[in-house]
């Protein structure tokens, strides 16, 4: 062992002794000579070099070689960085782990360490037992082969508690009497149970302790005071300065769990506590579910929050009356006194209040609300609201809930109520009966001095018994409750002030409000407060600080919870989590408000190891590689020394290049792809370039691939025909997406209509109208041969009407015989495609007249913006890639003739589009000639 380096075969290191011999040997052997043919040798004969020692290898080259040889020798000796010392023991081995919340942070390492221990024990054939002190196994400890435990390691997990209590005592008592060695994986915290356990283990055999020196961080429960949430992080050991980032978590408004706030606790050097205060808005604060120290996986670093941080929004409503200054008689005075410290109070009308989403609404002696408000309240209650009503003279005097149950009342009321023990009545004021078990008030002490002198009486309905949650000594209901949806309505049959009873004057009133979850208490409850209630866990923490849904866990009696909350010594450990009962929640945390952390102190006789296992790093490969590298350098150096490297800088450069390549085996970073330009603009630009570079015919993409294909082929055929027969030389046609593409580049659009075609968007219509107004032409083709007269009953025709309705299309007429379309290039009278139906164009103005002697009328100047027909022209024009007709048109010669005419129509159409009324102007020629003649 040399420091952290050990050798697998240290004997080989003896070979290092041979290095001086090698030095001498290498020194004696000069580098091999180069044989050169050189005619000048005749001049060299007899020359002797001056320095006689140059036949020795230069010292640095020698050192290089020795280094290489030494590296080989040392490498072959098998050096290992951080070798595992194998402390072989004998006899049974007990591995105990604290497995507490504090162990969770380093648990993976601890598991690895246990695995190592097991592997070593397995090699040594020692029987092993593994036990967790936080969850000690019941019954006698069984030593088994290491393989047995290796499979069961996963069963040992950190618990969200500290070791101790009756279970640990039982475990220690049940330890076998025969000797065994103990390895104790400690969590590093001092605790009372440790000494006893150590003593018990030491009597059985040697004890070795492994603990992590890493500091342990924990978070105390948040304390709410003066509107601030005070958080305290604690640590052990208290060395150096450190920071702990504490994050607050809770659902956001959409219910997703997320971080709501964060703060940093800064530990001063030597301080074990660090705190800070968070100021959160009530809305945010009420949503908090837990605080945790960021980056620490441990139950101790998580502090669940309960009602202590939450302040309910309570709305108070009382009848408005004219009396002023009688505060003590105000129906709300005592409620305000009781609730002000623990809840946010809201005043206002019902509709205003509901907007603030209160948890509780208290109606003090309000008999009636409007129907609308009642509906709103019911709706609010069904979503979980709690409506608390107090009786009073108004309620008693009203007819509310008399004959039938009012929606906002838990029970029906008898008229009038009753007075007992008053000045004008018989009998004593009534005391309260102890609360029954099923009541939310169960367990509360009933003070003697709470008496009731007046109350409203409930009608003895069948449900009355189950709706009663508190009653007077004579059995009349004092508090009744009725669930409504997720919420409930609660009626105190007495007033909220001291007029009818002394209840509002007693502490019981506050306790009752708490039990009803009207208010929450900031402090810790004592056993009395929780007596008689049952608390079911809602969420539980595991040892790693992960919050899990508790599922169907049995409830816990209130006394147990109180003991756990008070962190009483010897109390039965309660799983940390949030416990709920009747809308109230208490959080049990691993770390109590007074918990402190201190590092564990072990007696000097106990060996303590760190948990950190430096992994073995064999250095053999690295050393041999270094030797190889040195030898490579040696080759170059030898070449240099023997003069073979001088041959030229080029060769030297190559060598350097080779060296660099050797040193940098990673390929150069691949060239990054030049970022693709934005596809949309690129398409636009390409489209514009293609469309404006040459004349291009375009068709509207219908979304039907067959139709689009035929349209493209048709325009290609028409383009070829134009190319061959006219001076128009169009390029390959383009399909246009009405929604995306600019139309202004195209003189002509062919638009086949399909039934399934989507109606263009408003933007597309705007573009189309702009296109038509700017002189574009659209050839609408219903492709149905205009079977039933133009566009009135065929599906495509109807579709055309729907599509064309928002378009700016002038009045139409069938193509008149003297329309310019009939003579722009060819003289034609029919406009057939695959069919030969009627074709419609813009109607001629009504005043068009035939000039004298002219065969044509003097028609409109402009180009018709639309040509509409159903002749399926594209099919007639369509050609395939080889230029042959794609579709069958008609039969035999007649068909060919029809195709030819279709092509001629196409030529005429495009000529019309491109030259406008040029041919129409020919009618003016005689007049022009006449003028020239003058």
């Amino acid at each position: 062992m040399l420091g952290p380096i050990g050798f697998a075969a240290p004997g080989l290191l003896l070979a290092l002794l041979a290095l001086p011999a090698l030095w001498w040997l290498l020194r004696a052997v000069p580098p091999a000579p180069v044989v050169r043919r050189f005619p000048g040798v005749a001049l060299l004969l007899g020359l002797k070099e001056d320095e006689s020692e140059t036949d020795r290898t230069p010292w640095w080259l020698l050192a290089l070689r020795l280094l290489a040889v030494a590296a080989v020798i040392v490498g072959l000796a098998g050096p290992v960085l951080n070798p595992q010392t194998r402390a072989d023991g004998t006899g049974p081995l007990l591995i105990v782990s604290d497995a507490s919340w504090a162990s969770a942070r380093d648990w993976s390492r601890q598991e690895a360490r246990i695995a190592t221990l097991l592997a070593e024990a397995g090699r040594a054939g020692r029987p092993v037992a593994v036990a967790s002190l936080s969850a000690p196994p019941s019954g006698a400890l069984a030593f088994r082969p290491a393989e047995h435990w290796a499979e069961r390691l996963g069963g040992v997990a950190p618990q969200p508690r500290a070791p101790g209590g009756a279970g640990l005592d039982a475990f220690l008592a049940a330890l076998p009497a025969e000797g065994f060695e103990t390895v104790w994986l400690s969590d590093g915290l001092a605790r009372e149970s440790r000494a006893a356990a150590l003593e018990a283990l030491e009597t059985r055999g040697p004890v070795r302790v492994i603990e992590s020196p890493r500091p342990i961080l924990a978070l105390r429960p948040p304390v709410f005071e003066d509107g601030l949430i005070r958080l305290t992080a604690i640590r052990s050991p208290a060395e150096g300065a450190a920071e702990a980032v504490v994050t607050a978590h809770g659902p956001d408004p959409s219910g997703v769990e997320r971080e709501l706030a964060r703060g940093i606790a800064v530990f001063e050097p030597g301080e074990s506590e660090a705190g800070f205060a968070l100021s959160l808005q009530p809305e945010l604060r009420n949503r908090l579910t837990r605080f945790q120290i960021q980056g620490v996986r441990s139950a101790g670093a998580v502090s669940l929050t309960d009602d202590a941080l939450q302040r309910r929004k309570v709305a108070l409503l009382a009848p408005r009356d004219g009396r002023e200054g009688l505060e003590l008689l105000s129906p709300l005075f005592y409620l305000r006194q009781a609730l002000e410290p623990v809840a946010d109070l809201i005043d206002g009308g019902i509709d205003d209040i509901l907007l603030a989403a209160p948890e509780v609404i208290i109606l003090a002696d309000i008999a009636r609300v409007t129907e609308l408000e009642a509906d709103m309240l019911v709706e609010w209650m069904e979503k979980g609201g709690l409506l608390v009503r107090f009786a009073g003279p108004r309620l008693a005097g009203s007819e509310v809930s008399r004959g039938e149950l009012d929606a906002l009342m838990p029970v029906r009321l008898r008229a009038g109520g009753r007075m007992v023990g008053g000045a004008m009545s018989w009998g004593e004021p009534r005391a309260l009966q102890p609360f029954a078990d099923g009541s939310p008030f169960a367990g509360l002490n009933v003070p003697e001095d709470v008496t009731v002198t007046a109350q409203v009486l409930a009608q003895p309905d069948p449900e009355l018994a189950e709706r009663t949650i508190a009653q007077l000594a004579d059995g009349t209901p004092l508090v009744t409750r009725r669930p409504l949806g997720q919420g409930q309505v609660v009626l105190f049959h007495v007033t909220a002030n001291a007029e009818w009873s002394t209840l509002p004057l007693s502490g019981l009133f506050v306790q009752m409000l708490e039990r009803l979850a009207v208010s929450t208490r900031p402090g810790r409850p004592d056993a009395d407060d929780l007596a008689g209630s049952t608390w079911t866990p809602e969420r539980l923490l595991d040892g790693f600080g992960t919050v899990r849904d508790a599922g169907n866990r049995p409830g816990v009696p209130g006394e147990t919870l109180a003991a756990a909350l008070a962190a009483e010594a010897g109390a039965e450990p309660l799983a940390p989590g949030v416990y709920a009962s009747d809308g109230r929640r208490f959080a049990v945390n691993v770390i109590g408000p007074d918990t402190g952390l201190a590092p564990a102190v072990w007696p000097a006789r106990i060996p303590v190891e760190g948990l950190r296992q430096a992994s073995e790093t064999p250095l053999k490969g690295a050393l041999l590689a270094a030797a190889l590298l040195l030898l490579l350098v040696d080759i170059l150096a030898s070449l240099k020394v023997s003069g073979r490297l001088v041959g030229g800088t080029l060769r030297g450069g190559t060598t350097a290049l080779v060296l660099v390549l050797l040193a940098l085996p990673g390929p150069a970073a691949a060239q990054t792809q030049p970022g693709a330009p934005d596809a949309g603009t690129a398409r636009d630009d390409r489209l514009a370039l293609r469309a404006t570079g040459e004349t291009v015919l375009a068709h509207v993409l219908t979304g039907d691939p067959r139709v689009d294909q035929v349209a493209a082929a048709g325009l290609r055929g028409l383009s070829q025909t134009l190319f061959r027969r006219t001076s128009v030389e169009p390029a390959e046609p383009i399909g246009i997406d009405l929604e995306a593409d600019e139309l202004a580049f195209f003189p002509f659009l062919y638009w086949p209509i399909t039934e399934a075609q989507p109606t263009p968007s408003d933007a597309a219509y705007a573009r189309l109208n702009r296109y038509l107004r700017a002189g574009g032409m659209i050839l609408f083709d219903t492709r149905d041969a205009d079977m039933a007269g133009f566009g009135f009953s065929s599906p495509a025709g109807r579709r055309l009407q729907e599509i064309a309705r928002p378009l700016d299309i002038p009045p139409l007429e069938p193509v008149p015989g003297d329309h310019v379309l009939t003579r722009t290039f060819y003289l034609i009278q029919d406009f057939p495609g695959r069919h030969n139906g009627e074709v419609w164009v813009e109607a001629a103005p009504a005043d068009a007249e035939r000039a004298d002697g002219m065969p044509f009328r003097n028609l409109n100047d402009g180009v018709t913006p639309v040509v509409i027909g159903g002749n399926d022209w594209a099919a007639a024009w369509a050609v395939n890639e080889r230029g042959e007709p794609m579709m069958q048109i008609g039969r035999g010669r007649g068909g060919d003739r029809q195709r030819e005419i279709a092509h001629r129509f196409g030529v005429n159409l495009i000529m019309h589009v491109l030259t406008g009324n040029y041919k129409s102007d020919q009618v003016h020629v005689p007049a022009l000639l006449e003028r020239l003649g003058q």
Partner: protein
Amino acid sequence: MTAPLPAALRHRAEGLAASLPPLLAEAEHLAATVMLGEHGRRRAGIGDEFWQYRSAHAGDAQRLIDWRRSALSDQHFVREREWQAAQSVALWVDSARSMEFSGSRDRAPKVDRARLLALSLAVLLVRAGERVGLTSAALPPRTGQMQLQRLAGRLCDTGATDYGAPDTSGLAPHARAVFLSDFLGDPAPVEAALTAAADRGVKGALMMLLDPVEEGFPFDGRTIFESMGGGLRHETLKAGDLRGRYLARLAERKDRLAALARLTGWHFTCHHTGDAPMVALMWLHRSLERVRG
């Protein structure tokens, strides 16, 4: 021809035949770049070309008087013709193994340069009407294109010795001679040949052909130097150490040759194969001219 030719001879013949035309062509090409200008002996003598008129001295034969010129004046003039007797130039190209050295892969061996220069010079001389041959008795000086062919053939012979010595067996008296060699071998035969030639009234030029590597000695480290034929070996442990003294010896050799040349009325220069052959050819041509002066 019944006896089959030895395959080796035939190979060699083919190799020669393959290399001859390019060598000759290259030589012609190089020679064509030399602007000869007026070509003549620059002195009166027997020839066809007019040289000068001079006043007739006493003793001039009467038939020598140019009567047409003399009739223009009262004096008698003799028409002299330029001396046009052809000169013999003998070439010696060292074909020993040492000439096959080339210091770099992209440089031709020294012997190539030597042959090229010799043949180019021969082309120039033949064009000028001189007779060109070898110093050895194998190819006496003659003129004409056929002589060039023969010369090219002879020049392509390779020697077997490490270092060459001039063979002056065929050197005619009062001829001109050109020795092309690296002169790295034993200088004694060269001196002997040169002295013998001077004795016979032969003048000419010595051209020392060296590879730049021989001039620079860029070697270092432990090296065994071998002569091209392997006859000489010299081992050094630190070649770089010898550079200075090698260069000194080379300079001494050059000095010695130059001194010898001066003594015998020859011209001496050193040409590096790294330089353009044109310069060397011009120098050779001019040195032969000067000899005539």
